[in-house]
């Protein structure tokens, strides 16, 4: 029998994929890559509907899905190496922050940036240009990247540094994987004095209080983030627990821990879905959790010693907390607003908290200046991130309304979290969008790098 091109198409398994929010599932043929070379081969595999790389699937929406096309699962390609003399790490795209920390912390190094979960990959960190509690001091992930190798749909592999090809480097930083698939990357990691942090806690009764604390005090801390109670209204609107800290020196540790200052354990206490009952996170339980969380925090506490998982990744102790929102799933909405948009920030908090639709993981932080990435999210100002359960029919209109407020003050939404914004807002939120499109067109003229998010927002 004569062989046709269709016959030669590799028989990849068809899988149903969603993001961390469990919404809008689609199916794709999934290539499980185990090395940088296999990632590159997956991206160039025959596909009528293009390809996109996927890491640990922690984007909340549809960024790492490609309906009807190819999705390259990079998590099998997880090798990395550290040069202990310089702190420079070279890692395959699928290496996770979890794996990196297990390797780095005992040597006295930390990752340059970590989000609220350690289950993100190096490839995903670049594609979303992730940020963390140290953004005001250290910027976002790509500010620490020295180089990466990018696989393109024509089968070629390009080495990219900020000096050799600044346009492609920065278009890939936050480019949601649509300018090529990162196969490996080299980045600089900071040294730490121990694996513990010195943490100061301040509780604020309202939004103005916490904003003032951050404005006045953040510069004294390497890491800073506020948990904001989105169920509180009226006089307590925006009440928050602000946690700030820095890595402890060995002498700061309790005497018994000084002998082994870099000890690191990161356990998942609960991970079986059965142990996180579906729908356990509902308005009633969330009100209760929020109240307890706020009440248990001290008004002021200084110099508490916390571990890395306690301070950075508390939710990772419950491996599948996302299932708590039930089968319809949830979404996360994260905006960035200019520093002077405090009234709009208050209005947004007010609209979201009085709607009684939110939520569990709500974070407020002050960003430092952004970087040159046209689609990189962070910009100097405030960032607010909230969970929203899906299912209440009024949520769509509510979120459109808060989007309009964000747009009106020159703010933007985070694409790694997005699962429902209007594509027409993108140009105003990301004024350098056309620059980004030009770079994409130059490396991917046939638009073969594509994702559900890209289709939804008109990026591919």
């Amino acid at each position, binding site marked *: 029998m004569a062989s046709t091109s269709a016959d030669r198409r590799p028989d990849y398994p068809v899988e149903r994929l969603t993001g961390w929010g469990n919404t809008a599932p689609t199916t794709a043929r999934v290539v499980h890559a185990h090395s940088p070379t296999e990632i590159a081969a997956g991206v160039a595999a025959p596909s009528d509907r293009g390809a996109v790389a996927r890491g640990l699937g922690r984007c909340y929406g549809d960024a790492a899905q490609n*309906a009807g096309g190819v999705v390259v699962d990079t998590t099998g390609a997880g090798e990395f190496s550290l040069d202990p003399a310089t702190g420079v790490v070279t890692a395959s795209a699928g290496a996770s922050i979890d794996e990196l920390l297990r390797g780095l912390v005992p040597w006295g190094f930390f990752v340059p940036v970590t989000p609220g979960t350690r289950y993100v990959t190096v490839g995903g960190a670049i594609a979303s240009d992730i940020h963390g509690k140290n953004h005001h001091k250290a910027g976002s992930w790509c500010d620490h990247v020295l180089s990466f190798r990018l696989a393109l749909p024509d089968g070629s592999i390009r080495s990219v540094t900020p000096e050799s090809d600044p346009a492609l480097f920065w278009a890939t930083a936050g480019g949601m994987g649509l300018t090529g698939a990162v196969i490996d990357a080299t980045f600089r990691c900071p040294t730490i004095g121990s694996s513990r942090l010195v943490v100061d806690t301040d509780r604020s009764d309202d939004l103005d209080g916490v904003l003032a604390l951050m404005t006045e005090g953040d510069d004294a801390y390497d890491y800073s983030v506020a948990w904001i109670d989105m169920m509180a209204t009226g006089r307590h609107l925006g009440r928050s627990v602000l946690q700030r800290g820095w890595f402890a020196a060995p002498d700061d540790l309790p005497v018994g821990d000084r002998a082994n200052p870099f000890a690191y354990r990161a356990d998942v206490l609960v991970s079986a879905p059965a142990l996180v009952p579906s729908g356990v996170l509902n308005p009633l339980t969330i009100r209760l959790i929020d109240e307890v969380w706020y009440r248990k925090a001290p008004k002021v506490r200084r110099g508490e010693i916390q571990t890395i998982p306690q301070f950075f990744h508390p939710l990772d102790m419950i491996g599948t907390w996302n299932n708590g929102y039930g089968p319809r799933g949830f979404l996360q909405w994260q905006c960035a607003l200019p520093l002077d948009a405090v009234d709009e920030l208050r209005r947004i908090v007010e609209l979201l908290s009085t709607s009684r639709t939110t939520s569990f993981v709500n974070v407020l932080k002050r960003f430092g200046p952004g970087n040159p990435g046209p689609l990189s999210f962070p910009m100097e100002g405030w960032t607010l991130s909230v969970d929203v359960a899906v299912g209440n029919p009024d949520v*769509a209109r509510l979120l459109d309304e808060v989007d309009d407020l964000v747009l009106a003050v020159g703010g933007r939404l985070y694409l790694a979290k997005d699962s429902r914004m209007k594509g027409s807002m993108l140009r105003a939120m990301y004024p350098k969008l056309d620059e980004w499109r030009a770079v994409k067109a130059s490396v991917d003229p046939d638009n073969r790098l594509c994702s559900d998010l890209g289709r939804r927002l008109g990026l591919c």
Partner: protein
Amino acid sequence: MKDALGSVQSALVLGGTSDIALAIVRRLVDDRCARVVLAGRDPGGLEKAAAGLSREGVEVATTPFDADDAEHHAAQIAAIFAEHGDLDLVLLAFGVLGTQDGFDADPASASRVVHTNLGGAVSASLAVAQQFRRQGHGTLVVLSSVAAERARKSNYVYGATKAGLDAFAQGLGDALAPLGIDVMVVRPGFVHTRMTEGMDAQPFATTPDAVADAVVRGLRRGATTVWAPGILRWVFAVMRHLPRPVWRIVSAR
């Protein structure tokens, strides 16, 4: 693409002049839907319907489609997808009601109604399913009827076709669920439309706009079955179990 809250960006209507379908599509284009294809038999009616949907930034196209021509459904629907690109939502809205007097006088005409309402709907749905599998996503909304729940003596031919279609759509939905493809069965009660003009309204009569609101709410929460009005779900939970002599009296109203 459909988003996390069930908003779609493109839609195809099979039976593009249906009052209920057009009420649904009006809500979709007021939200995020920017591409609509109306398919049907009556070019004049389609043009008029398209004009009623025009909004800034919304593309509306019309295309001929014969629900009775099952032989060509697969090719025709493939051609629509090829020309218009991804279609996030397909609304299966064609169907004829007929009159019992007409069927009594001309039994073959009843068979033609079965062919359109059931045979044509089944082949069109399967043709849509082929395209949804290819594009890896999609939502099929099938207009069934409360008449599918229990046949009444005044319109049992129509009721039989909707009962068949309803069962088919449920099975199709279960088959496609693992692929991230949704099938929503909509069961309206008596709806004031051109199809029911001049007929006596039944209890819980509703309007195309009310049905459309129910469908949009259903899309938002990922529903697989939508009753319009919602109370009919509970009414029919009782009705379907009434003894036949009682049902005969109740349904005569």
